[in-house]
């Protein structure tokens, strides 16, 4: 980016500065640490100069926004044209409860829905299953059948909103239910917009809500990708997720590398179905965490975009620039929130959200300050949404595209993140790909080690957490109101489900479930049959049970 002679001159000046000016300063005011590192372990220099980005080629490595390699952003005008989607993850209690929260969020200026399901739903159990005891509607909304999804979206026109669903193993089932509600509302399938998380690979080493073994899990993910490529042109069939990898303890660098590798695996599995890369790659979407180290996060987002573009172009020979787009949703980091002095979490969330915006995200969820204590209350959710709105409307950071582009530090860090992520990708290739790496416990061990290291650093006060290991206060009163789920939610939900099971056409349900069993054994794409099954009000648990019989259940590989 700079002329050789200029860089040489700067180098000489730096050496002079280090010899003559710097020592006096350090003598009078020694640096706080012998070395400074970010969460990923990258050594941070005292000061960055053009020397650090002398290899950077503007057109090759940065380019213009909306053009390859997309480092500066996917859209030519970014937030000057359209703000990111403010999408708040919500769901608790019954479908009625969550329907109310959805309508509230839409009325407060939210622009997209995002559904949190309870654990039984996520694990493919109906609300009346013994494993569901005490969990119904507690961490998300309880969904057992199409009937619940009809209530969930009651009065919400599906052609006017986009909906994200955080669901993985049962993603084909929930998507089928959404399609069924759309059909009932008379919305053409081509107009249904939204996202199913449907990223089963990361379940095995990050979120760990696995139902089936790795291979059938990837098969189900691919079924949805293939079906959407053919029938739901506006749906994002998968949200390839680094968020959970990070929350499980990975560093920013591991999050970046492992997420992109999962993306590679899904591209490969879909190509094996005979689709062309440009038929589906433009609908792949990504989901990252935003943590506390501000510049590390910004560099991560920028590096992710550039690296994905290069992988799609060079590894998979995509031709359509849209296939090289990494569209991302970002969520501020839940594991950085503290139960101690919870109002401080508003500040953490603000810094994290700002990093996501400066990193060029398409969509953002901001956590509520009370989430280390309970599910967020309405007031806490409002503050979280307002945080985004203040960044969007008051801070001025939206006035220009990629404001940090060209920063010596940010560009050097972006490059280093990209290079180190490539080393990981090479390593996973050598291990035989994502499934092989899971079976060998590679990701699990990497993440467990990072999580443990982080905890040690906190305990040794190498890492300061305000209000936790420094600036703590004794005998804290819990100042905030907690949201509790009434145990009667479980009773009502179970009663509604059992009534449905009595009143539906049970012969038809049985026939369709047998048909599904057959289709699963034949390795057909299961989407059409599952849509048929949910429309006959076969339940989530019944459908999952059929698949459990055919695919078996995953036995956790325990890595401490």
């Amino acid at each position, binding site marked *: 980016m700079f002329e050789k002679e200029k860089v040489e001159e700067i180098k000489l000046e730096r050496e002079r500065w280090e010899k003559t000016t710097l020592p006096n300063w350090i003598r009078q005011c020694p640096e706080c640490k012998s070395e400074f590192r970010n969460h990923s372990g990258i050594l941070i220099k005292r000061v960055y100069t053009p020397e650090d980005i002398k290899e950077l080629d503007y057109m090759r490595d940065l380019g213009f926004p909306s053009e390859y390699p997309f480092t500066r952003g996917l859209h030519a005008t970014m937030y000057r044209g359209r703000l990111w989607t403010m999408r708040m993850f919500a769901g608790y209690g019954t479908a009625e409860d969550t329907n109310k929260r959805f309508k509230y969020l839409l009325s407060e200026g939210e622009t997209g829905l995002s559904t949190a399901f309870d654990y039984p739903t996520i694990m493919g159990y109906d609300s009346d299953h013994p494993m569901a005891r005490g969990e119904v509607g*507690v961490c998300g909304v309880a969904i057992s059948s199409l009937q619940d999804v009809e209530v969930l979206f009651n009065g919400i026109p599906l052609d006017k909103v986009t909906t994200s669903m955080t669901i993985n193993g049962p993603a084909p089932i929930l998507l089928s239910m959404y399609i069924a509600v759309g059909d009932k509302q008379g919305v053409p399938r081509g107009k249904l917009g939204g996202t199913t998380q449907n990223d089963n690979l990361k379940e095995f080493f990050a979120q760990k809500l696995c139902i089936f073994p790795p291979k059938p899990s990837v098969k189900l993910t691919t079924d949805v990708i293939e079906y959407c490529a053919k029938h739901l042109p506006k749906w994002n069939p998968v949200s390839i997720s680094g968020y959970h990898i990070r929350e499980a303890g990975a560093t920013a660098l591991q999050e970046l590398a492992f997420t992109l590798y999962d993306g590679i695996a899904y591209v490969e599995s879909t190509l094996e179905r005979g689709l062309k890369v440009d038929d589906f790659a433009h609908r792949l979407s990504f989901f990252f965490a935003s943590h506390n180290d501000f510049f590390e996060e910004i560099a991560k987002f920028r590096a992710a975009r550039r690296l994905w573009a290069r992988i799609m172009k060079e590894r998979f020979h995509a031709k359509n620039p849209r296939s090289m787009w990494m569209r991302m949703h970002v969520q501020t980091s839940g594991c950085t929130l503290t139960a101690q002095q919870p109002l401080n979490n508003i500040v953490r969330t603000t810094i994290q959200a700002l990093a996501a915006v400066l990193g060029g995200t398409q969509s953002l969820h901001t956590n509520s300050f009370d989430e280390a204590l309970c599910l967020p209350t309405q007031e806490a959710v409002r503050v979280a949404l307002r945080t985004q709105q203040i960044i969007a409307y008051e801070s001025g950071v939206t006035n220009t595209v990629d404001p940090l582009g060209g920063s010596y530090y940010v560009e050097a860090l972006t490059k280093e993140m990209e290079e180190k992520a490539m080393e990981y990708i090479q390593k996973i290739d050598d291990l035989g790909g994502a499934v092989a790496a899971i079976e060998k416990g590679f990701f699990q061990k990497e993440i467990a080690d990072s999580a443990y290291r982080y905890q040690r650093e906190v305990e040794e006060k190498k890492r300061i957490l305000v209000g936790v290991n420094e600036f703590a206060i004794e005998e804290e009163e819990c100042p905030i109101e907690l949201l509790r789920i009434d145990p009667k939610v479980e009773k009502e939900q179970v009663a509604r489900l059992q009534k449905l099971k009595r009143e539906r056409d049970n012969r038809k349900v049985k026939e369709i479930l047998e048909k599904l069993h057959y289709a699963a054994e034949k390795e057909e794409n299961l989407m059409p049959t599952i849509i048929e099954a949910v429309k006959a009000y076969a339940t989530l648990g019944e459908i999952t049970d059929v698949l459990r019989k055919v695919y078996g259940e995953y036995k956790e590989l325990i890595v401490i």
Partner: protein
Amino acid sequence: MQSKRKIRVLIAKPGLDSHDRGAKVVARALRDAGMEVIYTGLRQTPEQIVETALQEDVDVIGLSILSGAHRALFPRIMELLKEKGLTEVMVFAGGIIPDEDVPEMKKLGIKEIFGPGTPTEKIIEFVLQNMPKKA
């Protein structure tokens, strides 16, 4: 002569939630402190946890839960421990358990509840000080 037996700890994840970062960090810290640690893995029913405690002859059980289902699951675990005669086993818990639930949980016989941000050293010290005396 009696050789000194290592403290045996079962770290268990009842319920459906999959947040195992805390459980694993605690398991590793207790192991590094010289204890014998058995980790159940995710999604264990109360019956499975108590059965493992019995089979593994543990002195201590640490329960980790972040889903909010502790109010349904902890009473069941404590009841089963009594049924199986494991009343000597010391039980502690961690995760997201609201302060106002703590007295009720302690009444069940759970010795201590550790919230988010607890240093592992505090947990190690607690286990050492509250080790049940084996007959």
